[in-house]
């Protein structure tokens, strides 16, 4: 069962790695809000 234990360790490491990676590209909802929405030109 050594491979099982190795897999569990790799899985946890991978999960934490994914969290760290994704948290660094997390976007707060306020991004882009200062620009506001310009009204398109009438057709």
């Amino acid at each position: 069962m050594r491979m099982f234990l190795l897999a569990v360790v790799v899985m946890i490491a991978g999960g934490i790695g994914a969290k760290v990676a994704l948290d660094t590209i997390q976007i707060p909802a306020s991004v882009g809000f200062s620009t506001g929405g310009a009204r398109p030109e009438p057709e």
Partner: protein
Amino acid sequence: MSSLALVKRIVLAGVFALSMHAASAQTLPDDSAGRPAAPATGLNTDKVEVHEQQLLGEMRKLQGFITIPDTRAATLVQPDGRSWRDYRRGPLLWITAACVLGMLALLLVFYAVKGEIKIAGGRGTATLLRFGAFERFMHWLTAASWCILAISGLNVVAGRAVLLPLMGNDAFSLFSTWAKYSHNFLAFPFIAGIVLMFLVWLRHNIPNKIDVEWFKQGGGFIGNKHPPSEKFNGGQKVVFWIVVLGGGALTVTGLALMFPFYVTDITGMQLAQLAHGGVALLMIAAMLGHIYIGSVGMEGAFDAMKDGRVDLKWAREHHSLWAAKELAKSGDTSPHPAE
């Protein structure tokens, strides 16, 4: 004077007023002298009436212009949200029960009738290497993360009905937070495991004539014959493709859910959710069967994933062609004794 009568009168008056209005709109397209006549399209811009119910009848969801950058806010009404709700509170729970409890019941019945499928004459001493270290690693990577994904996924669907009453609000919320984290982040090791298994085992899982014969003979489950088979028999190939295709579908829909609204809109999100849950539940049912036969259901099967070595007698029974090939390859006529 009852308020009902009053309401009636108002409604009648309203109907009357509306019909008058409609009539006047019909007979007098441009009633105000001096204004330009209606354009050739027949549209009089002064008189375009808008009715929410009529628009909804035409469009399912109403979208418009907003002055904030959050494009999701541009959807004014999407009544489909209610249907999505109805599905989650009704059919989804029944499908979940069928896939999980139904499958467990079936396996229990199967076990009661058939018992553990034994190696004829008991285990021998000789063993054969079935799965190398890397094969076992990638299988366990997939299996371990799959179990957590399945449990945390089921929690989202049925935890409120099953666990919440037992745990209470606070404990259940804490548990669900962690379940959600684990579902989101362990998805990546799971995806890696699926990709690895696909690459490493694909060549053993191309369906061929031997599988047809295997299925014709009921896979050895019906009666006691053991149809010949290579490294993976017909049933295992089916499991392989369920895992690869199901895992692939879960990856695509799961990533869409994890990156909400990056690739699709509200309708797309609802559909991704439906598909993800549906495929996951079918896969859970299939995997329960796979776990059963790989553990309590068959003597000697678990060894293949434990240390990779299986009983030679087991290998000859269930994978006769593969066992013969392996023995010929190594020229080893007196295989290793069991440890």
